[in-house]
């Protein structure tokens, strides 16, 4: 009984650490990537006792993002504006970061791993209403931004908070519809089950991934996801030109770091969801639990461990790819005006989502009869 508990705890810790590290890597990746895109050098100053320079290694700003910034963040003075609501001010960052990290509990990053007699499901917790959990927790995320803006007793912060929550509600709706479409096609709310149902291939060569069933839902989810994470082009809450830093204007130090982290954690989350729902999560094309069955060539038997590791690697690869995609999107598209944002959210994504839903329903009924 204890070992189960330990295994679960291990899974949970691994999941969280993975996400956090990935987030910081993304931070670095984005800084250097954006510099590359904008044809500039990017962070390359920080070095620990000049070791890198002495060794002739080019300073890629790695120490900047991995050592310098975090240290700075956590040692800076934690400033709370006067007359602001101290309790809310400290609660807000937590409320925005916590929900995102918790969502990963339900994201499957691998198939079953058989270790001796025990079968370990590479998913932090097997919840057959995973999707509902997902939506519920995302809902709580809104409070972080909203309270952040309200508690810092700053007009611009408040406006930022209002914008953020309005935006998140609108796009949560669109994301919900997309997810429902997926749930309808796979007939289950459990994400692991959804991934399993994306195994196998049509006509021998076409893998049965979600994107094939639900291409429109994929696009909806991706757009809504980016909007949810409040990253450019859906950057209203912290639009520099207007609201300085949006709802975390009055934040500094650790709390500021928390908001930054939520930002990147959301990116990872969105890519994970997109991967799970539309790209088979840990499914490797033509890889079945017993091994590869290549179309036309034959099948290669592989031990369970190898299959599991291959699954996890595939999943990791897909997540990284979509993170890259989102960062790319961030540094290419200009920011939307707020009404365009709302227009996109309510007048385009929502109807599309409904239409998609209706179409899927029709198809399912047709197929079923």
């Amino acid at each position, binding site marked *: 009984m204890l070992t189960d508990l330990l295994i679960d705890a291990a899974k949970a810790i691994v999941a969280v650490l993975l996400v956090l590290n990935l987030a910081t890597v993304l931070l670095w990746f984005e800084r250097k990537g954006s510099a590359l895109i904008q044809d500039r050098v990017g962070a390359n100053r920080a070095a620990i006792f000049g070791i890198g320079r002495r060794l002739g290694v080019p300073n890629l700003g790695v120490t900047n993002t991995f050592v310098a910034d975090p240290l700075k963040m956590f040692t800076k003075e934690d400033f709370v504006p006067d007359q602001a609501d101290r309790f809310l001010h400290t609660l807000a960052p937590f409320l925005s970061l916590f929900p995102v990290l918790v969502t990963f509990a339900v994201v499957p990053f691998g198939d079953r791993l058989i270790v001796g007699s025990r079968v370990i499901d590479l998913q932090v917790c097997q919840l057959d209403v995973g999707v*509902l959990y997902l*939506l519920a927790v*995302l809902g*709580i995320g*809104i409070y972080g931004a909203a309270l952040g803006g309200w508690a810092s007793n700053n007009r611009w912060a*408040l406006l930022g908070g*209002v914008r953020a*929550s309005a935006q998140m*509600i609108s796009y949560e709706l669109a994301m919900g519809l997309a997810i429902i479409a997926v749930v309808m096609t796979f007939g289950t*709310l459990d994400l692991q089950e959804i991934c399993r149902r994306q195994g196998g291939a049509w006509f021998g060569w076409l893998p049965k991934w979600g994107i094939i069933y639900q291409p429109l839902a994929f696009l909806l989810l991706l757009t809504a996801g980016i909007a949810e994470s409040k990253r450019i082009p859906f950057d209203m809450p912290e639009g520099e030109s207007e609201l300085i830093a949006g709802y975390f204007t009055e934040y500094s130090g650790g709390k500021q770091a928390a908001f930054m982290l939520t930002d990147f954690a959301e990116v990872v989350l969105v890519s994970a969801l997109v991967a799970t729902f539309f790209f088979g999560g840990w499914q490797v094309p033509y890889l079945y639990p017993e091994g590869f069955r290549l179309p036309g060539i034959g099948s290669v038997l592989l031990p369970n461990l190898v299959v599991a590791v291959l699954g996890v690697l595939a999943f990791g690869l897909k997540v990284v790819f979509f993170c890259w995609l989102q960062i790319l999107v961030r540094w290419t598209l200009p920011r939307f005006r707020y009404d365009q944002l709302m227009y996109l959210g309510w007048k385009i994504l929502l109807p599309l989502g409904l239409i998609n839903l209706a179409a899927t329903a029709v198809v399912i009924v047709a197929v079923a009869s």
Partner: protein
Amino acid sequence: MEVGVFAFFAVLAVVSALGVVLQRSPVHSLLALVATLLAISALLIGLGAVAIGFLLAIVYVGAIVVVFLFVIWLLNLQRDPGEPGHLAAKFFGAFAVAALTAELFAFFVRAPVGPPPAPAGYGSVDRLADLIFRDYLVAFEATSLLLLVAVVGAVAVARRWPADQPRRSGAGASAHGELRRAERA
């Protein structure tokens, strides 16, 4: 769902409910409300009604309370400066609530049966969906209509009419005034 876990969530619910009632700042009571709702949805999930538990969380915490927050913002409500007076009403209210709790407790304490083992798929979504879309379909459609009406009503009541200047304080401020102005405009 063991008693311990139940106790934790029960205490959390009660405390946060008290928070809702007693907090000075509306935002704090709002957060207390969020806490109560989450505690209740947790209890529901504990009771096996998983689908409705999460739905409760999604609908209430995700949407309704946020709207509350929006309204608090719009009205820019600060901390209530405390409410002196009205002692009679308060005392009488408290007394009535106490009596209510006593009576309810008297009822529920003697509820006889402990919950039997839940049947398979007890709280699952499809059982719930089955009931809603088969036995209670009419009610479901009615509620959809209700929601539509509510939305339209809310917009109609709360929107700012074109003719609205910033209101002089109180004078002629009744709804009738608006109508008259709307006619004039």
